[in-house]
């Protein structure tokens, strides 16, 4: 009988592979799910191995937007990994090699499961954002209301879904798994309160994961976790109505990523640094826009006080500085700019140019020579975009809108510059 059950389990497993090879991933996932379930039922599993498999399967579900199934897999992974026992203490690890290895293994695998949870929370927030945003990236309150009304129906369906889904566990574990599931929602959050709850769960797992994947020893993993943390903040900011608080969230992102970016060896970590630089540039830009909106709301007559101007300029130039750093990272070791931009960096590079231009034209200064300098820098960068696309027609498709706007600005900015120059001459 036992052999028969085992053979059945294996058959599920073979079917999973067959469907995977045929490219029918959905079916393959179902059979993986079934295989895991049978392993649990028949008590033929090693806890950590099983937990990791379940956590990995959850990632499949997450990328398909099937959050209920994903959450179930993760909850089961958490519970079953607990069955692997306590982590050996440091003292025990020092005594024996096997204990030390076991400690290492357990810690790492649990940290990996935490990372899968982070992805769950992050994807949930991001998918909710995509659903709720209007065409300029702000929260569409009409859509929000609509979805809230539809929510009731969804909740009923969720219950039905749970009953029909393959549930993991045995009698002992059903309850524990359910209680882990209850800690986080599986429907898309529709407002700030719900989003914040998901965020906090995600942040909790960030802390857990960072305990093992420390900077010293696991640089790449540590940074990936930080990037996820930053993305969690960014996603939550979308739901936050209060602009001041929104700005603070972006500040957290900057504080988290800025020191890392500067610490990394620029040769070995070039690509990660580029990602960080670009993200920092965009975040500073976001903060700048928020500060401006806030200031304009307070002052009716559109004149900003010097403190606000200083703050604004600081954020503006920080953003420009990071975009410029990104651009500089594309240069050869001798400092020469690339004549041809590789496909992977084409759009970011041209967008960075575009943004540097815009940022320079936004800098506020009362000194005409400084204004002139800023406008000239702006013009220079708009020109680069136009000229690069002329020399490389295939690039134009990647930055259609930016190119159009750059062309306009190249036409119009010289007038502004000339007017400024003549004013300067007149005043002298």
């Amino acid at each position, binding site marked *: 009988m036992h052999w028969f059950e085992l053979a059945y389990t*294996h058959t599920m*497993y*073979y079917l*999973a*592979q067959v469907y995977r*090879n*045929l490219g029918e*991933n959905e079916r393959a*996932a179902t059979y*993986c799910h079934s295989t*895991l379930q049978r392993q649990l039922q028949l008590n033929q599993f090693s806890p950590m*191995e099983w937990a*990791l*498999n379940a956590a*990995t*399967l959850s*990632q*499949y579900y997450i*990328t398909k937007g099937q959050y209920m199934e994903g959450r179930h897999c993760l909850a089961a992974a958490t519970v079953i990994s607990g069955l692997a026992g306590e982590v050996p203490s440091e003292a025990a690890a020092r005594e024996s*090699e096997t204990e030390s290895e076991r400690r290492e293994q357990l810690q790492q695998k649990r940290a990996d*499961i935490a*990372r*899968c949870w*982070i*992805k769950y929370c992050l*994807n949930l927030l*991001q998918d909710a954002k995509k659903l709720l945003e209007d*065409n*300029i*990236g*702000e929260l569409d309150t009409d859509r929000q209301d609509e979805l809230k009304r539809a929510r009731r129906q969804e909740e009923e369906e969720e219950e039905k879904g749970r009953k029909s889904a393959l549930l993991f566990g045995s009698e002992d574990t059903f309850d524990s798994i359910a209680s882990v599931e209850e800690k986080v929602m599986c429907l898309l959050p529709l407002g700030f309160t719900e989003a914040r709850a998901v965020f906090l769960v995600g942040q909790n797992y960030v802390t857990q994961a960072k305990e093992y994947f420390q*900077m*010293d*020893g696991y*640089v790449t993993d540590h940074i*990936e976790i930080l990037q996820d943390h930053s993305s969690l903040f960014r996603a939550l900011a979308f739901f936050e109505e209060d602009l001041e608080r929104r700005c603070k969230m972006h500040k957290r992102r900057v504080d988290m990523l800025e020191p890392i970016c500067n*610490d990394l*060896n620029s*040769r*070995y*970590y*070039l*690509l990660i640094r580029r*990602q960080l630089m*670009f*993200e920092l540039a*965009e975040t500073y830009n976001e903060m700048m826009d928020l500060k401006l909106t806030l200031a304009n709301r307070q002052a009716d007559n559109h004149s900003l006080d010097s403190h606000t101007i200083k703050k604004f300029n600081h954020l503006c130039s920080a953003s420009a500085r990071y975009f410029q750093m990104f651009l500089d990272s594309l240069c050869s*070791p001798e400092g020469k700019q690339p004549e041809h931009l*590789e496909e*992977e*960096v084409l*759009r*970011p590079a041209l*967008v960075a140019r575009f943004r540097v231009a*815009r940022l320079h034209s936004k800098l506020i200064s009362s000194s005409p020579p400084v204004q002139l300098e800023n406008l000239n820098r702006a013009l220079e960068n708009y020109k680069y975009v136009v000229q690069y696309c002329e020399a490389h027609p295939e690039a134009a498709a990647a930055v*259609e809108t930016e190119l159009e*706007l750059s062309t306009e600005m190249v036409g*119009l900015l010289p*007038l*502004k510059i000339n007017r400024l120059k003549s004013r300067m001459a007149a005043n002298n």
Partner: protein
Amino acid sequence: MSKIKSSESVKVVVRCRPLNRKEESNGPAGGIVQMDLRLGQVILRNPRAPPSEPQKTFTFDAVYDSSSKQRDLYDESVRPLIDSVLAGFNGTIFAYGQTGTGKTYTMQGVWLDPEKQGVIPNAFDHIFTHISRSQSDKQYLVRASYLEIYREEVRDLLDPNHGNTRGLELRESPETGVYVQDLTSCVCKSIKEIEEVMNVGNQARAVGATDMNEHSSRSHALFLITVECSQPGPDGRKHIRVGRLNLVDLAGSERQAKTGVQGDRLKEAAKINLSLSALGNVISALADGRSSHVPYRDSKLTRLLQDSLGGNAKTVMVATLGPASQHYDETLTTLRYANRAKNIQNQPRVNEDPKDALLREFQKEIARLRAQLNHRRWRSKQKKEQMDGEAWERDGDEEEEEVEEEEVEKEAEEFVKLEEQRLEKENEAIREDQFLLAEEKQRLLGENEKMMGDLRKRQEATEQLTARYKVVGRWCVSRVVIEGEAGYTMIRSPVCHRDTEDK
């Protein structure tokens, strides 16, 4: 199909050895591997297939046929990599191929014969020649290490106790990247010394294994050369650049137990792994999507080499083939692996948030600037006409002047009114322009939405690639699937758009 330009960082080259005497005598058919050197293509003929079946074609960065010279392969495909190592960057050379396909000849060759020296002795030559020719203010230090990764444990082949101790730890620091803790490294001042290190390591490798074939076919050997250059900088202080060269001999591919359909079927049989312990592999393959985390398993090799995915690090994969028809299946497998390796994107993409609010702002600013431009034109025209009006004014006598003044005033008023009307028309035109702009904006928005859709797709692709990089960073750069029986030396295959050979 035209040659795909791969990312600069990863180069895949394929080399086929000549038929040996035994193979030649076996059949008149000749080899099954044909190469088009100019196009960089390998054409594979299935000896069991009917003539009507199309041959399989694969394209690579460079292909070397049986008449190729060691020197040519080195100069074309490896030299730039060594140059960059000497400049302080990291580089990796992978060797992949079935035993007997010329892997060892390609990588080692005949050490003492300058014509027949392989990649490794050529590299040593290159490095030490460069050092001897360098300026006197530059000081160099060359160190060599040799390690083996067997059953996911890192063993130091230069450590006499390596068989008894635990595997070594991989660590990572922000300044130095990934490194092996406590790895023995020997300072080498000449080619002779470095050769000696290699011999010691090779012997140590053989000693540990009960069955050498089995052992070498399951373990990766990594010979690591570190070149440090110290040079006084413009500030008077000494600046140190460190370049790392990894020479990796990948675990053999020939030991796959073939299950599934054999014979004349043209579709590659789906390899079903019999051992349930490989369930993880199956699930991982499903989960390899955007925005996901795959808890990587067996990846000491890939972690160690992850900075060869660094972007300014160069990677070369050398795949070796045998031309005989009895090795068709293995040859096809090697080509497929090499093909996948070629598709690796080394660059994790930058995630960009398309800003539509920004576009609206721009359109406002442009409208404003245009309006200012038009206003200036109107102003200057008004001034000009005013001056004409003034000139006209001066030419009358007093009484007439009064009347004329009135008239002029009236005319001026008229003029102003007309100008106002004209301005209003122009404003309307500008508004219409703005309307046009708005329409344009709508169109642009429509386009934008499409673009947003595209951008989102691109963003998804970006995230996919970012995730892929993250996964790739975990899984070996060669993205070769070696489904070990115990599922341990797993190097994952990418979920690429182009996972098939050229048609």
